[in-house]
């Protein structure tokens, strides 16, 4: 039997080795591809806290991904056009500094997650899925009609934003930033899982009645998880927009929300590295099959079908022969 830790270590090592190899043989495109996988993994890690730990099937996590993207787009747009962003209480000239953009992306995502959570967490099951989907669509159509920031066309950034001491235009350096962030968040996620909060959240998923009977408030646990989750996915959105130097309403699309769920289920819900493995599979399929056929999603669907039918622990569950979290 293969041990989950071994798989985790192998995946991280592979994610690090591939871009280094690509650097050695001078294939910058591969580096960008892996960076994409790392960022999608980060977004899905955020969702996994809600879905895998909390058992909430959020079909609207693209909201946070999009908010992160627009936080980057708007701040950088004002900085590059030297125009003023008037926020009512104060004005700003925007910024090209990644750490500031990240903080803004996380703060706004967290705030929006708090509001969406307060409104949606009273429901569960299909209703929760529908409400979160509805929020996603609201943001999507709002972005489309937001003429100031390109409407349907979105916002392009001339040069990638900056990080003190690094040249973010060099693919391997931007990859390094994303990879380090992913590792940090994975570390935090593991601490969270093992913490009293993680134990309580996991218990509330398995039996809300049990949690209440020992004096815990499942709603409040879920709300806090939702906010943390939204912040992480928001951060991923800011990085994703920076990778592409472009943000558009498609970052808010329901397809993206769905893909994030699929990534997690393929990799293994509730598992530390589930979303990471799912993201790697997704990006690999998209790259190799997407070049051959426009219908590569069919293959993704087949994989998903196989995993749902033959074991609910995802790829990690199959390799380690253990079940994943039931959601």
């Amino acid at each position: 039997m293969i041990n989950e830790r071994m798989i985790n270590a192998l995946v991280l090592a592979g994610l690090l080795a591939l871009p280094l190899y690509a650097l050695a043989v001078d294939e910058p495109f591969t580096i960008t591809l892996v960076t994409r996988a790392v960022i999608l993994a980060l977004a899905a890690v955020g969702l996994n806290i809600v879905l895998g730990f909390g058992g909430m099937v959020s079909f609207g996590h693209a909201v946070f991904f999009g908010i992160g993207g627009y936080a980057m787009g708007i701040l950088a747009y004002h900085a590059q056009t030297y125009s003023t962003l008037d926020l009512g209480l104060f004005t700003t000239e925007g910024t090209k500094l990644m750490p500031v953009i990240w903080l803004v992306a996380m703060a706004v995502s967290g705030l929006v997650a708090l509001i969406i959570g307060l409104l949606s967490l009273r429901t569960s099951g299909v209703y929760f899925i529908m409400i979160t989907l509805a929020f996603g669509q609201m943001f999507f159509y709002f972005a489309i009609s937001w003429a100031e920031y390109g409407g349907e066309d979105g916002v392009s950034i001339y040069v990638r934003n900056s990080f003190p001491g690094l040249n973010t235009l060099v693919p391997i350096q931007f990859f390094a930033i994303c990879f380090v962030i992913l590792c940090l968040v994975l570390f935090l996620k593991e601490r969270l899982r093992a913490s009293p909060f993680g134990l309580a959240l996991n218990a509330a998923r398995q039996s809300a009645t049990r949690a209440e009977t020992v004096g815990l408030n499942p709603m409040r646990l879920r709300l806090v998880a939702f906010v943390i989750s939204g912040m992480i996915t928001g951060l991923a959105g800011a990085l994703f927009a920076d990778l592409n130097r472009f943000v558009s309403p498609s970052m808010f699309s329901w397809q993206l929300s769905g893909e994030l769920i699929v990534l997690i289920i393929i990799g293994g819900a509730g598992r530390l590295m589930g979303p990471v493995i799912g993201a790697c599979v997704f990006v690999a399929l998209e790259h190799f099959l997407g070049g051959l056929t426009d219908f590569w999603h069919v293959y993704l669907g087949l994989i998903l079908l196989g995993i749902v039918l033959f074991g609910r622990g995802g790829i990690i569950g199959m390799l380690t022969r253990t079940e994943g979290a039931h959601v």
Partner: protein
Amino acid sequence: MSDVVLSTHNLTKRFGALVATDDVSIDLRAGEVHAIIGPNGAGKSTLIQQICGGLKPDAGRVELVGRDVSSLTTQARAKAGLGRTFQISQLCMEDTVLENVLLGAIGAGGSPWRFWRGALGLTDMRERAQAALHRVGLADAADIRCANLSHGQRRQLEVAVALTLNPRAFVMDEPMAGLGADGSKQLTALLDGLRAEAPILLVEHDMDAVFALADRISVLVYGKVIATGTADDIRASDVVREAYLGTEA
């Protein structure tokens, strides 16, 4: 009564035309086991649910150590001192036995709002959890996943989780359900010792256990308490024999 820990006052609950709880006033005194017996569908679980906050009564109120807890949520009542076990086990099947009791300790004693330190590393909580496991005889099973426990062990674990709450009163809904003769005997001995810590409101079908444990017995039929008394009173009562014991035994 001066030493009443838990009481209901004129509790009434209707499901449509069915009166599942009909003007029930019972109390639980310090140090006692008060058993509630009655045929299937008499409304025992429904009564427990209203006491613990899972169901809102149509009328009447619930008091815990002199305080009206009728408007409190389930979690607030748990914090106020109700230690409840379920007719159908409510446990975290994916978690280990230790994690299940730890959850109780965290819910009651500490706070779940700690995100950094490992739950298993909280020494005080862990000791409290392990002590509870020890009490019910599950100390050796601490690392087993709950899903892999036998039915009897799950019943024991239910009691252990309630123990971690250090409750003012235990409310147990058929803790012996599905246990064999040996299991019942063990659990009976355990509950016998527990009453010194907190009195037990015990819903139970196992008459051997009821007669061995109960200081007082109330008989519930069609939602109504038709008799309350000592084991001997109940055994001798014609009303009860007619309504219940005769048909059961």
